[in-house]
């Protein structure tokens, strides 16, 4: 009984340590999707989207930078993956490079319109923002995440395939498909 009490006491006294690490060097712990995968995906998508010819084609045809709206990303993998992490990196690169224009979408756009509606009755006339002056997007960015799992006994391979597609809103023409594959070998 004494041993049991001592064990319980020392178990309850075990202290947890937390160490700050570089986000770019997140170690693999469980083998699941993690920050490193998100970063690798974002880097590859940024590189592909800003270097491929859809951009020059648009500039040649229209004479101005394309405007993109972000649509839906469907996660059809075996894990919960939030695409917003790498999508935000991609959106940020559009703005920082100034090669692609970006317009707000989804819930944030709804909030903007609600704010604009509120202004119609509350803001001063000189600061009032008008409806009907939003910039229309040329392309919509949509994506999907898929995975393939092969496991036997304590060995497992997981392959993630992330695809992003850029489609011309007026013509439905797909002008760019970005792809990133990540394969992992996990041994328990």
């Amino acid at each position, binding site marked *: 009984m004494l041993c049991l009490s001592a064990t319980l006491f020392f178990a309850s006294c075990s202290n947890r340590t937390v160490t700050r690490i570089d986000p770019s060097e997140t170690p693999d712990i469980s083998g699941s999707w993690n920050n490193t995968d998100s970063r690798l995906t974002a880097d590859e998508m940024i590189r592909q989207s800003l270097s491929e010819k859809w951009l020059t084609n648009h500039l040649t045809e229209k004479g101005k930078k394309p405007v993109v709206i972000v*649509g839906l*990303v469907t996660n059809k993998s*075996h894990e*919960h993956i939030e695409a917003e992490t790498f999508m935000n990196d991609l959106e940020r690169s559009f703005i920082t490079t100034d090669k692609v224009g970006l317009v707000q979408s*989804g819930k944030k756009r709804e909030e903007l319109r609600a704010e604009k509606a509120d202004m119609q009755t509350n803001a001063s006339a000189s600061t009032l923002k008008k409806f009907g002056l939003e910039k229309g997007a040329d392309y919509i960015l949509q994506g999907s995440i898929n995975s393939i*799992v092969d*496991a036997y006994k304590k060995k497992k391979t997981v392959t993630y395939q992330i695809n992003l597609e850029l489609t011309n809103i007026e013509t439905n023409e797909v002008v760019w498909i970005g792809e990133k594959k990540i394969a992992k070998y996990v041994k328990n």
Partner: protein
Amino acid sequence: MKLILLSVFCFSAMAMQAQTQLAPDQNPNYLISQNKYMQAKDSLQGNMNATIQQTYKAYDWYEAKLERKQNRIQNRNERRLYNNYQDYNYYNSGFNNYGYNNYYGNYRYGNRNGYNNFWSLRPSIGYRTGNWWFWF
């Protein structure tokens, strides 16, 4: 009468104008689709800039093994709890044949019906049972 004629004329003029405003190579029936999607746009745009989770459960031999083990432990615990509950009810009901309550509570080797079964042969004290109350 003049008002009706004027209205008909106005509608005809608007229809003619809509026809003439077609972009090059535009489908003349585009308004059918446009009206359809104008009504549904709010519900269709609700998930924009979001991730839809349509995940599946992948079969993992090792994880399935761990899950089976966990289920076995859980089932065993539930069975033990149920048996303890039954014993408690029996010994405290006043209808047992021993004449005193809870005497065999921790050291029983048979069930209340007088014959042994597999689970009742197992000790009810120790690490596997989670019961450390030796003195009761």
